[in-house]
């Protein structure tokens, strides 16, 4: 627009030859022949397939022609110029042959005069050139014409938003309804086109033949942020950018409000089909799905896997999500080795680090329920630690040691234990174990992480032998809580990795026992049904074997197994098994035998 304004009117005193439209047409063809940056890139990229890069164009010429023969003269001129330039371009790297060119001649004449040029629809002049002629009166008629052409040339369609309430300029307490016409890609109407819903289309202002689809404004009531099911979003532009209704609408949208648009229907039902919304100063027309969803009535997540578990760390994970939000990094960054760093890969990396030890439910963790651990837990997941971070971690650990000395209570889940739950020193042992797991998961991050672990190890309470002796003593005292002890003793005998893994398994087992108890509502019932999934059962036997002497764990699980086996009929395969192996599909042998005889019969027939 600015460039057009800079051109200025032709100089009336100059040679009339100079301001002939022919120069313009020749210049247009020349420009079309020049290779664009994009074409150049594509050509170099495709190498031997370079001929696949196309070069098509359209010349729109707004002029005042003298007669139909003048128009023909202009067409011939373009035709010839293309021919000449294509010859030139064939031997050039900077030029490209024009494969297809559309010439749109718009003959405009003063209002009040008669047109000397007749309209002509698109016609093929040569394989390369097609031409059409539009004859139109100057002024707003020309503008309307250009508007229509723009829609054809850029696959646009028009939507008129109707019933937009606006306060009157003169009478501020009354409001009138305005309409605003928008242009956008025609795909935004794809639903209407497919369903043949043409009745909602009316004709646009000024009697143009181009159709517009009318949608009704729905005044937004709440500022609720919702996620709509949107199947497409297309940029829009008001047809009349500077009109007051248009600028009112665009300002409203640019301020961050979204507007739902409704299809006017003869029947009473209200169908929201589109939404106008701005994103960073650009307004988009969102196409919302208004048809029945194929996903209706899905099973609720609470009915599925993990749906019965009630103590998920929802808030903690919310916090985790916030910490792992994304943000754009527009400037390229480089790694130490000089390669380009992809921010998205960094994001994945961070997620990996942050989830190395992340228990999903509250009863699986102690440390994440403790405010005192937060300073350590929040920094240990980092890629690298500062001196201050290390100091904070150490402080946290000292603080915990202090708590243990003072025998402060810990927020250990008492679910799954009868009576008061584990003794205080046992609680601390569990807590220290868990903390160690967390820190160990990150020791390879940096040398400073290592230092945190060293500090932790140094501070962990008494030497294990002493602890063990203490526990052995206590074991004789209370015989009731066998399952608990199984856990304890077992852990002391194994290295920490194994013990962690098995503790998890056992604890889960315990929870299930406990849950079963809760359901039954009688804690003293003899033996709750074991709900351990088979997968977990399978994991235990190899451990038993490796241990040699029978441990309390295996005693305990054997007891559970025998208790269980009384409750169900043994699987036939297992009963008939040899060395725990049963042959499958035994019946097939017999059947196969039969089949062969059948086939034999068939062949004889």
């Amino acid at each position, binding site marked *: 627009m600015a460039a057009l304004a800079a051109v200025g009117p032709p100089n009336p005193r100059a040679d009339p030859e100079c301001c002939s439209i022919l120069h313009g047409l020749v210049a247009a063809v020349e420009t079309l022949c020049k290779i664009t940056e994009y074409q150049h890139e594509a050509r170099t990229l495709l190498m031997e397939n370079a001929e696949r890069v196309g070069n098509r164009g359209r010349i729109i010429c707004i002029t005042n022609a003298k007669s139909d023969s003048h128009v023909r003269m202009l067409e011939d001129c373009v035709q010839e110029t293309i021919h000449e330039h294509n010859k030139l371009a064939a031997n050039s790297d900077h030029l490209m042959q024009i494969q297809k060119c559309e010439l749109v001649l718009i003959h405009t004449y003063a209002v009040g005069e008669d047109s000397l040029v007749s309209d002509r629809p698109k016609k093929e002049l040569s394989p390369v050139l097609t031409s059409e002629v539009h004859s139109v009166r100057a002024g707003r008629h020309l503008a309307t014409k250009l508007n229509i052409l723009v829609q054809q040339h850029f696959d646009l369609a028009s939507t008129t938003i109707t019933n937009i309430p606006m306060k009157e300029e003169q009478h501020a307490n009354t409001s009138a309804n305005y309409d605003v016409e928008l242009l956008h890609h025609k795909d935004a109407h794809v639903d209407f086109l497919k369903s043949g819903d043409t009745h909602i289309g009316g004709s646009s202002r000024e009697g143009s033949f181009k159709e517009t689809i009318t949608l009704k404004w729905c005044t937004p009531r709440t500022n609720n942020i919702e996620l709509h099911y*949107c199947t497409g979003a297309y940029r829009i532009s008001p047809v009349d950018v500077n009109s007051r209704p248009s600028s009112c609408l665009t300002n409203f949208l640019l301020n961050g409000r979204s507007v739902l648009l409704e299809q006017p229907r003869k029947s009473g039902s209200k169908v929201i089909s589109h939404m106008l919304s701005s994103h*960073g100063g650009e307004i988009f027309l969102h196409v919302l799905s208004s048809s029945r969803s194929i996903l209706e009535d899905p099973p609720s997540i609470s009915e599925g896997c993990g749906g019965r578990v009630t103590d998920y760390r929802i808030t903690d994970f919310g916090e985790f999500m916030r910490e792992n939000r994304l943000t754009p990094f527009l400037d390229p960054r480089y790694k130490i080795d000089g390669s380009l760093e992809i921010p998205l890969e960094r994001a994945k990396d961070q997620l990996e680090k942050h989830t190395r030890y992340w228990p999903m439910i509250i009863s699986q963790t102690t440390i994440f329920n403790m405010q005192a651990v937060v300073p350590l837990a929040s920094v240990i997941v980092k890629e690298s630690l500062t001196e201050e971070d290390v100091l904070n971690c150490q402080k946290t650990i000292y603080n915990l040691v202090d708590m243990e000395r003072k025998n402060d209570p810990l927020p250990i889940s008492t679910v799954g234990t009868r009576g008061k739950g584990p003794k205080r020193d046992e609680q601390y042992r569990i807590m220290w174990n868990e903390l160690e797991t967390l820190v160990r998961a990150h020791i390879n991050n940096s040398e400073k992480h290592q230092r945190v672990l060293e500090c932790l190890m140094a501070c962990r309470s008494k030497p294990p032998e002493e602890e063990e002796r203490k526990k052995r003593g206590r074991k004789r005292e209370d015989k009731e809580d066998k399952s608990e002890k199984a856990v304890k003793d077992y852990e002391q005998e194994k290295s920490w990795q194994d013990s962690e893994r098995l503790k998890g398994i056992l604890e889960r087992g315990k929870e299930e026992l406990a849950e079963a108890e809760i359901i039954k509502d009688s804690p003293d019932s003899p033996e709750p049904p074991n709900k351990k999934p088979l997968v977990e059962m399978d994991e235990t036997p190899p451990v038993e074997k490796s241990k040699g002497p029978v441990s309390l764990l295996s005693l305990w699980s054997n007891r559970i197994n025998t208790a269980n086996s009384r409750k169900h009929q043994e699987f036939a395969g297992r009963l008939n098994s040899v060395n725990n192996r049963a042959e499958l599909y035994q019946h097939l042998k017999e059947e196969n035998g039969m089949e062969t005889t059948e086939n034999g019969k068939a062949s004889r027939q």
Partner: protein
Amino acid sequence: MPTVVVMDVSLSMTRPVSIEGSEEYQRKHLAAHGLTMLFEHMATNYKLEFTALVVFSSLWELMVPFTRDYNTLQEALSNMDDYDKTCLESALVGVCNIVQQEWGGAIPCQVVLVTDGCLGIGRGSLRHSLATHSQRSESNRFPLPFPFPSKLYIMCMANLEELQSTDSLDCLERLIDLNNGEGQIFTIDGPLCLKNVQSMFGKLIDLAYTPFHAVLKCGHLTADVQVFPRPEPFVVDEEIDPIPKVINTDLEIVGFIDIADISSPPVLSRHLVLPIALNKEGDEVGTGITDDNEDENSANQIAGKIPNFCVLLHGSLKVEGMVAIVQLGPEWHGMLYSQADSKKKSNLMMSLFEPGPEPLPWLGKMAQLGPISDAKENPYGEDDNKSPFPLQPRNKRSYAQNVTVWIKPSGLQNPNAEIFLPLIDRCTEDFKKCKEIT
């Protein structure tokens, strides 16, 4: 993807099939047998699929409207009568109407046409329809291609030799071509018998009705999931050699974004993400749908009590009002979010963005999104009151610039009073108006 089963019940379907043994079978029995197998498969492995049953001869009838109740479909199969001649075109028109009425024109559907390869005679026969195809006007246009995204599977109760002896196969191939090549013809391998019909329907099931299993990952937190409906391969139009893109079976979460920031993005399709419990053989134990079967029930109960990452993720996404951005393949992303239906049942849902480096202009290039901890200061602000989104486009749009006010020449006589003051007034008034509407 809803399914329409279109069953041929013309007289030719009653032609007997010679099978050694006592019972006499007709082609329609074979067809019913195959469909039973399909329905049984769907009832166990593809429960959420909506299926309708249409029968046709010279007329067509919707026997069972779209349903997930496979018993009803099964019953309808056994209650089919025999009618006159085959008239495929009208049946296809019927399918168009049924699907458009129910789902509109945007939802992809699968049409399973079961026929014997006898395409009718005279007016209304497929041969006649195809011969007159080029002379159609808009009002009686041939129903193919379907006015909705579709796959047309033709199950022939005949073997290849039989179809090739007439021009049936060519006509059926024309049908697939007319549907823009979307679909496939299945024929019976070898003699017509129950076993071979089963293997033919088995192929259809493998092609179109195997559940899509994936692993949802967020760092070390993982869950086995079924994605329903199956994500279909996507063809990017602009590519020179388009290769259909298929989504990874590892759905890797790369980060999180607030719902307000992602703001109703356009998506290709939506899918339920259902946690499943896989046992060692790789069979699923429960997809979260209650079942009459007792064994499965107890298995479901066990699975229900094992903590699952999907449930945790869903809960937190719902509470925080956020979505998780998930990587589906190279330069292909989607989002996970909590979706509640009208009955307040809520679920984990996944939407697929259009493949490409920059599916949403207001987020910028996906590869350029990184963790906030890498930024110098938290782009969301200390009190969570800011957001780095939406990205501002480089050029301001004409409508986002100051309003140009046109003044008549007469207004130019006394510049100070007559131009500028009304202009200022007008601007402030416009502003007020905007506020008033809001």
